[in-house]
Each structure stands twice: as C-alpha cells, then as structure tokens.
C-alpha cells in the first residue's frame, strides 16, 4: 500500500472510550472549563453499545458529578428494595442472613440500572456541554513524539480487505492529537495494554493483574415471578469450591431481570467452560422456577478486572492518563466498578485542568487518587479476592472476619500469586468436564446466544485477533491444553479443525463472532493472542445491558 496521507485534528483532551470513566472525565472537564476542547472516540456504533454490566449502581460519584441528577430524566429508576445472598448446592439453596454479610455486599440505597443506558444518557449530557463524541471510530494506535510522550491516537483505517488492501470505500484513519490523552477503554483495553508495557506502569505492582469473565442475559419473566428492585447473588453450584465466581440476578423495570455469572479467570482446568457453567446454573431449581414462562432477550459477555489495589498500575504517563477499568479500579467484593471508574475520571479531569491551565505535572494524579474515597474503598477491599486461592469456604470465613470484624483494616495484604494465563494445568493432568446438552428453553448454544448480542463485523476485513506466532497454537495450546480458547471464548470465535493436508489439528478463528470481551487476550496460556481493534462500528450492539 502506498504511503497514506492522514488528516489531523487537534483537541485539548482526547479520550478513548465512552464508558463511565471517559464520559465522567469529559463532563467534569467541561464543568471546570467550558473553553477546553474535548473529544471522545468510541469503537462501538453508538455510545453504550459495547457496555455490558450487572449493574447495581452506587451513585456516590454521580452525586459529585451531576448533583441534580435526580431532577433530570436519567435512566436510574429502580432502587434496591430487597436482597439475598445464597449458597447453592445442585438442588438446594441456603440463604445467608443479611446481618452476616459484609457491608460491601449490602445494597440499600443503590439502584438497579442498565449501564449501557446510563452511558447513553451521560453521552447526551456530555454532548450538551460541548463534548464531541465520535461513535464508530476505534482508536487503533497511540502516537508519540520524539521524546516518547503520548500526543494522541490514530483512528483505525476503514475499508481494508482481509489482506490489508484498500477497498473501494477505503477511508484512512486520522491522527487525533491532544495535549492530554485519556485511556478509558475498560478492562484490558488494547491501547492501555500497550501503554502499560511501553511505560512499564506496573513495575511497582505487588501482584499481577487478575481478571474475570462476566456473562449477562436479560430475561423478560412472568409478572408473578418478578419482584422489582430485588437483588440476589449466589456462590456455589455449579462451580466447584476452588473456582472464584458466582451469580447475580437483578429485577429491573418492565418485568426484566438481569441474570448473570462471573467467573475468575484464574481457574486451572483447561476443560472448564465458563459459558457452560453459566448455562448450567440456570437449570438450578430456584432459577428454573424464576425463568419459567420467561423469554431471553439479550446476551453478552465481557472480561472484568479483579486485581484491586495490589494490581493497580501507575495511572499517569507522559502525555496520558490510564483510568477506570483500563487501569483496574473495580471494587471486587462490592462487585461494582462503575462508581469507582467515574470517580477516577473525575479526578483525571481535575488533574488535566490543572495540567493545561497551571502546567501541573500529570503525576499529581497518583496523590489525588490516593487521597480519594476510591483508594480507601479499594484498600478495604484488597484482601477479599486473594483469599479465594484457599477455596470458597475458608475464603468466605476469612472475608467475614476481614470485612465484618476488621472493616478491611487487617494489618497485612494478601497477594495474587499468578497471572491468569499462568494458571492452566496441562490437559493430560486435568479432569474432563461434561456439560449437559442445551435445552433451548433455559440453556442455549453459543451461536444462538451470539445472535442475540447483535455482533457484526464487515466480513472482508483484516482479522482483529492476531496470533503473535502463527504456528504456536497448533503445536502448543492445542496439544498441551486441548485448546482452551474453544471453551473460554463466550462467542464461539475459536474452533479446532483437523487439517487433512498437514494431518494436524489447527485453530480456526471466526473473528466476525467476537463480542469484544478480551478474554482470549487475557487467558491464552502463551499470551499468543493479541486483541486489536477491528473496523470501527463493528462488534456487539448491546442495548439495555
């Protein structure tokens, strides 16, 4: 391809990702100084379309950002009215009394929301303040100056064919420069990943980052089973006790429930299929009863950050900030990351405003963050997730003591031992797991689930799931781990086929199916799969998720 001439746009602040963190940064920046020019790039076709979250929302950060939000027509409508925490066996459930639950798991005063809808609303709010949002444009590369300072991003080229040749409608990406670039792509953002490596941002981390995969389905259930404002969580069956995970079920408006499952990606058995664990969960008598006569209307999955404070990298770098779950501000015991992401964005805006108006260094982010309530929250929460390496029951007892008696103030910090891609044991040493067949009523196969996500990528475009070493998967992950990608991918992107020509099993990548969850980039044992941005506008079209 001949040299491409790229157009250039300049802003004071360029934000990557219109999620709660990026939108809060943008809104706060405009509130601090209306003169600042702010743009947000969003890879999904419209704001909110790639946002998938539980979500029980704590309004603390929103109260700070938009104090009068209650007077506005926001999509935050359903307050939490009752809650359950259950321990499941294969046919029974045991309710854990609320007084025994750590404060982090009590949701009085919170709201059941669709984060996707909230982001849509925040997007409109930001646009009314003069923020320019560009959905359908993926930030594909960071751009640097000679001194290696981040000076902006390049948007992805549009209209390339599979072999990277321009098609009729080729539209080259452009350079968008900013005095400050904000990376708020969400968990395992691909520019965030590059920045972490380039600037060695995690050099002072005590623990490697930890991730989970979260599934969410929206069901419309019969009114007699629906109880508006009810929040339920469960641990236990179908997961075995050595796996970190559990379910959520939130009763939202319009007889809908948000039903989901989160599983830590530090699981060991390559035969484990997070997708099938979730499907199987729905066959528990309690859940079955709830879903009876209901209809599944949405499906999606997304990786989430679980590492907490021990794994939180440095959040500033020359010319840019790394915020929200792109850095890893989720509060794991609370199972909430929206309010912390928003707060990290608010702080980012304050730091950036001082940087632009008073030339204050971006490194002031670290202290500001340390003195904020987010840091305090994450500090209290820090020992919960690592305690689960001892198994479910000891961890629950420890968490009870740590959270209930000491309020998260025990004088030591447990560490995460391994990165998630290091935990799989070889297939030959692992026990095969057989999952029940899908019944098409409660449980569904991956293709019909992916169909509901609305995901779509122009088929004649370069594959956005790169193999760093093209042959490694056939010789390594297939033989050693029986290719776990075919099981951990929630969208059926990875399949193993037998290649008659070379008489070997090979990995087939159906990248059109990808729902941008990033699990492969995280869990692949040899770290061979690299998730990069496909053509802008591609990916799932979530609504109400």
């Amino acid at each position, binding site marked *: 391809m001949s040299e491409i001439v790229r*157009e250039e746009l300049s802003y004071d602040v360029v934000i990557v990702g219109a999620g709660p963190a990026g939108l809060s940064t943008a809104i706060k920046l405009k509130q601090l100084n209306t003169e600042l020019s702010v743009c947000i790039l969003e890879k999904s*076709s*419209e704001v909110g379309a790639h946002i998938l979250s539980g979500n029980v929302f704590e309004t603390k950060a929103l109260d700070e950002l938009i104090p009068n939000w209650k007077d506005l027509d926001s999509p935050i409508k359903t307050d939490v009215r009752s809650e359950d925490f259950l321990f499941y066996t294969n046919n029974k459930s045991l309710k854990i009394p609320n007084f025994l639950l750590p404060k982090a798991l009590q949701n009085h005063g919170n709201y059941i929301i669709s984060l996707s809808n909230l982001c849509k609303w925040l997007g409109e709010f930001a646009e009314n303040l003069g923020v320019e949002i560009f959905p359908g444009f993926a930030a594909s590369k960071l751009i640097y100056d000679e001194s290696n300072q981040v000076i902006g991003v390049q948007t992805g080229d549009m*209209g390339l064919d599979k072999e990277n040749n321009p*098609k009729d409608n080729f*539209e080259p990406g452009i350079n*968008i420069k900013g005095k400050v670039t904000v990376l708020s792509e969400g968990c395992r953002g691909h520019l965030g990943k590059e920045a972490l490596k380039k600037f060695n941002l995690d050099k002072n981390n005590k623990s490697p980052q930890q991730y989970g995969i979260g599934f969410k389905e929206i069901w419309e259930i019969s009114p007699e089973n629906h109880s508006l404002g009810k929040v339920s969580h469960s641990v236990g069956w179908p997961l075995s006790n050595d796996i970190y995970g559990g379910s959520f079920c939130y009763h939202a408006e319009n007889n809908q429930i948000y039903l989901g499952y989160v599983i830590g990606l530090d699981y060991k058995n390559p035969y484990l299929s997070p997708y099938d664990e979730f499907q199987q969960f729905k066959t528990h008598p309690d859940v079955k009863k709830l879903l009876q006569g209901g209809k599944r209307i949405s499906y999606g999955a997304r990786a989430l950050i679980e590492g907490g404070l021990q794994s939180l990298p440095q959040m500033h770098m020359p010319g840019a900030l790394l915020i929200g779950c792109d850095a890893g501000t989720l509060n794991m015991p609370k199972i909430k990351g929206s309010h912390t992401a928003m707060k990290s964005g608010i702080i980012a805006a304050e730091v950036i405003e001082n940087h632009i108006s008073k030339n204050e260094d971006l490194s002031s982010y670290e202290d500001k963050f340390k003195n904020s309530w987010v840091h305090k929250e994450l500090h209290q929460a820090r020992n919960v997730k690592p305690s689960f390496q001892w198994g479910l029951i000891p961890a629950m007892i420890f968490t009870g003591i740590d959270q209930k008696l000491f309020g998260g103030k025990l004088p030591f910090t447990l560490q995460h031992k391994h990165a998630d891609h290091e935990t799989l044991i070889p297939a030959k040493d692992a026990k095969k797991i057989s999952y029940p067949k899908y019944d098409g009523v409660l449980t569904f196969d991956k293709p019909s689930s992916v169909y509901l996500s609305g995901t779509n990528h122009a088929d004649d475009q370069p594959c956005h799931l790169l193999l760093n070493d093209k042959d490694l998967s056939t010789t390594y992950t297939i033989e050693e781990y029986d290719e776990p990608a075919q099981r951990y991918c929630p969208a059926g992107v990875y399949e193993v086929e037998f290649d008659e020509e070379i008489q070997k099993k090979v990995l087939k990548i159906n990248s059109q199916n990808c729902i941008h969850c990033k699990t492969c980039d995280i869990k692949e044992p040899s770290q061979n799969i690299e998730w990069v941005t496909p053509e802008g506008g591609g990916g799932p079209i979530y*609504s*109400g998720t």
Partner: protein
Amino acid sequence: MKVLVAVKRVVDYKVQIRVKSDNSGVETQNVKMSVNPPDENAIEEAVKLKEQGLASETIAVSIGDEKSQDVLRTSMAMGIDKSILVKTQNTLEPLAVAKTLMKLIEKENPDLVLMGKQAIDDDSNQTGQILSALLKWPQGCFISNLKIEGNKVSISREIDEGIENLETRLPAVLTCDLRLNTPRFASLPNIMKAKKKPLDIIDIDSLGVDTTPRIKTLKVIEPPKRKAGVMVSDVKELVKKLKYEAKVI
C-alpha cells in the same frame, strides 16, 4: 441537475428486533437506529453524481421525529449538501410519504429523485413507484447501474432473467438496489463539517398533506419457531415420512 434523496431512519440491520410484549409493534426504545441501507446507496450515488460534476446540488429529506436529524447528519457527512426534516410524530404509510415528498419536490424542483428500493422495517417497496405516478415522472426501480448523459438516463436492473437495461429521461424517480455501489464511510473530518451544513426542519402540518393512515395494525407477532429437524436413516424412510406425516407427496 438538482438531486433529492429520500432517507429513512430505521432500526439498524444488525439489531435483533423484538416484538413488544403488548404485541403493538416492534421494540424501538433504546434500540440502535440507522440510515435505511438501500437509502445509503442512494446517498452514495447522489454524492458520486456531484463529484462527477453532473449534479449541482444534493438534498437529503427525511420524514420523522426530531431524532431523524441523525440520519440527515450522516447523509451530509457522506457528502450531501443540505437537508430537510419533515417533522411528524406519526408513522407514515408509503402513500403519505410520497405525497409529502411531492410537496417538497414542488418547492425544491429537483431533476432527479433517488431513494432506496425499500425500507428494511416495513419492506413496503411502494414509495418510489407511488411518487413517480403522482408526479407523472418516469420511474426506474431496483437500479444496479446508473448513467446520465444530458437528459438521458440509462439504468440497469436485476430481474429474474438477468439484467434489464432501460433508458428514460429526466426528471425521474429512481429507487436503488444494494448492488448499485458501495456506500462510503463518513470520515471524522466530514462528520464535523456536516454539523455545520444546513438542516431545515419543517412541520408536516405546514405542507397540508393528508397523512391519515389507511391501514390498521391489529397485532404484531413473532414468526413461529422452526421445529427441530429429524435425521432419517434412508430414502425409504424419507419417502414414508413425506407421504404419511408431512403429506406432501
């Protein structure tokens, strides 16, 4: 030559549509909306005519609520010069759409009207044809190729037997097939420029068009689920099943 393009805002083709629980229609709340895909081909063709120096001005028109402004902005980001939104809260049937367009055509005096062959939401495939009849202009439907020389319009359209090549004269109404061209992406700088292009909003009542619906929707339901297939072991069994169970042979 002045070109007018009709653009409809519809549920995005990638969205899995869902019938409302009260069976009154399809759920559109919080659903992604986009330019009707064949209308994108019409936009692309109009912009090409402008680039070739054949069109002097291109205008996009949409009929719908306030939100329909977004499809007009998209049209202008793709290269359309200006646009008009005819504001209404009601869903219009093809006849009413054609009548409304006719009023605008009387005002704007275009030489060529382009639109998608049909909208993917109601699949009516009528507006272009009704409009041409009301205007007493020639029509070319489902065009997959277009050539304009002076007053002469040459089109190709795919029919069952192959490709049909027709000729007609301006002014004309042409409806576009997906094969006509590949719509361009709106580039970021063009999206920004489009924000400054003129977009007039007029109320449908000011046009004096009778838009009373002539069709009443009783109930919208999902198509029945396909039953799972069965594997047959041999031809004999298949024939038996076709004969006695399906009763089709």
